[in-house]
């Protein structure tokens, strides 16, 4: 198990300029993520969850504020090759889109092995061994790795996307709606895998979703987001059983009485 990560988000905000003028997607948020914690970021569509997650991962540039990983400014780190290697070895993100998440011209093994070679400095043989270990962890047959992405189902592709992120053993895994497009049985499998990874490797996780049951199952704490700001945060049980903010109450009430009972 590697050293636990420390992520500090300080006054992080993002504006987009569109045809209707300036739009604030994320309003200056400040919080921290520590190693081993699994934060569920929940909220309605357009609340700014994905933008916040992408800025933390280093895939979007903030308009205001900073993200520090282990005390180092992420967006400065990404300006150099050595910095990129260091950052992406620690932080990986998996997104919802499984159809275009792999280069159609390359095999899945190539896609999964490349980060292991480039970021962990492994030889091709070592990287292939690491790929096989990761695929075994995700219950994926190694033979599938030699296929092209179009040969696989959405669920299999999503697990390969997870494999590509987990192959470098990141200390923070950012998941953006990773199970939203999948059927319920596949969702369960992937949620268990994510939780197992965090427990086994002591990795922190930022799990972005608009579905409360899945988020509550995976996470140790919840952050509820609305209109670009976190309106409530705390351990899963306290947020679910005693929500303080009216929007959180509304969100939880929406699940009451449905077959999908809120998991604790």
């Amino acid at each position, binding site marked *: 198990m590697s050293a636990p990560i420390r992520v500090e988000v300080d006054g992080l905000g993002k504006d987009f300029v569109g045809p209707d003028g300036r739009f604030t997607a994320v309003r200056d948020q400040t919080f921290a993520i520590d190693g081993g914690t699994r934060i569920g970021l929940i909220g309605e569509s357009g609340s700014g969850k994905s933008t916040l997650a992408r800025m933390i991962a280093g895939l979007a540039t903030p308009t205001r504020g900073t993200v520090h990983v282990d005390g180092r400014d992420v967006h400065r780190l990404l300006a150099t*090759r050595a910095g990129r290697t260091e950052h992406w070895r620690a932080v990986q993100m998996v997104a919802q889109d499984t159809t275009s*998440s792999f280069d159609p*011209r390359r095999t899945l093994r190539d896609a999964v092995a490349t*980060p292991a070679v480039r970021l962990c400095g492994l030889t091709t043989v070592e990287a292939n061994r690491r790929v096989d270990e990761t695929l075994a962890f995700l219950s994926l047959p190694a033979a599938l790795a030699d296929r092209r992405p179009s040969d696989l189902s959405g669920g299999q592709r999503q697990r390969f996307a997870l494999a590509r992120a987990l192959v470098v053993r990141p200390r923070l895994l950012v998941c953006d709606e990773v199970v939203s497009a999948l059927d319920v049985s596949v969702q369960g499998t992937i949620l268990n895998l994510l939780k197992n990874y965090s427990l086994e490797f002591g990795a922190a996780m930022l799990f972005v979703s608009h579905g409360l049951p899945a988020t509550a199952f995976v996470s140790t704490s919840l952050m509820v987001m609305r209109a670009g700001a976190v309106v409530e945060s705390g351990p899963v049980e306290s947020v679910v059983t005693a929500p303080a903010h009216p929007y959180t109450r509304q969100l939880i009430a929406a699940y009451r009485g449905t077959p999908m009972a809120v998991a604790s």
Partner: protein
Amino acid sequence: MSVPTAVVVASPRPRRAIRSETTRWLLAVPAAVVVLVAIVGPALAPYDPTRVIGPPGREPFGRYALGTDSAGLDVLSRVLVATRTNLLIALAVVLAATLVGLVLGAAIGMNESRRGPLGTLARAVNRFVDLFTAVPAVIVGLVAVAFFGGTVTVLVVVIAVVLAPIQVRLVRTEVLRVRGEAYLEAARMAGFSELRLTVRHVLPNSWGAVSENMPVIFGMAVVLTAALGFIGVGLPRPTPEWGSMISLGASDAATGRWWAAAFPALALIVTVAAASALGTALRARRA
């Protein structure tokens, strides 16, 4: 009494996709034949294409297979040798225009939505490329040849400069499509720089459309080379070249001696049609 009438509206017949592998190969045959003529043609030429070998204006299908022109040069020998010249110029133009297209198109496509000086530069180059497509090719050719002389290199550079914006715009469009794909973010997270991921992922995934357009550029290059030759700013006479041969033979055609212009014109038409058929075959492969 009113008579019920029916209005018959002809619906456009949808173009059928070419699905048969055999059809695709057959479409490539004319291009293969033209290339073969360019390779072996000069060796098969019965006479020196630049020397007077007989009386002027001799009819075809006699002693001289395709007759002689008004200067007494053998038309068959000239058409065969010109095939190699015109094809080589067009091929060099296609390669140069595509290379420029890949470099500039990728640079514009990957940077035009950036903020800062790089984005501004990319947008400015894009506008310049758009502007350049409005400049008539023949005018550029006239000016360039007047300045630098009519050599193969000058012709290739001039025609490539005129046709490159088409490839630039096509590459840019493809890059804009590929740029939004999620696997590019995955490549960034594997530590690739923007340049490396452009070479590794963006260009290979843009290549299909660009390669399919190469026969179109080829056809245009053949026509432009001949057009410049026709107006007398191409290769110096008596170098065998279809455009200048058509130009020289056109005045004879008015007096009934049609062959000096007709055969190079036929070679030109067949070459352009063969390139077009090859383009169709390439597009059908991906459809």
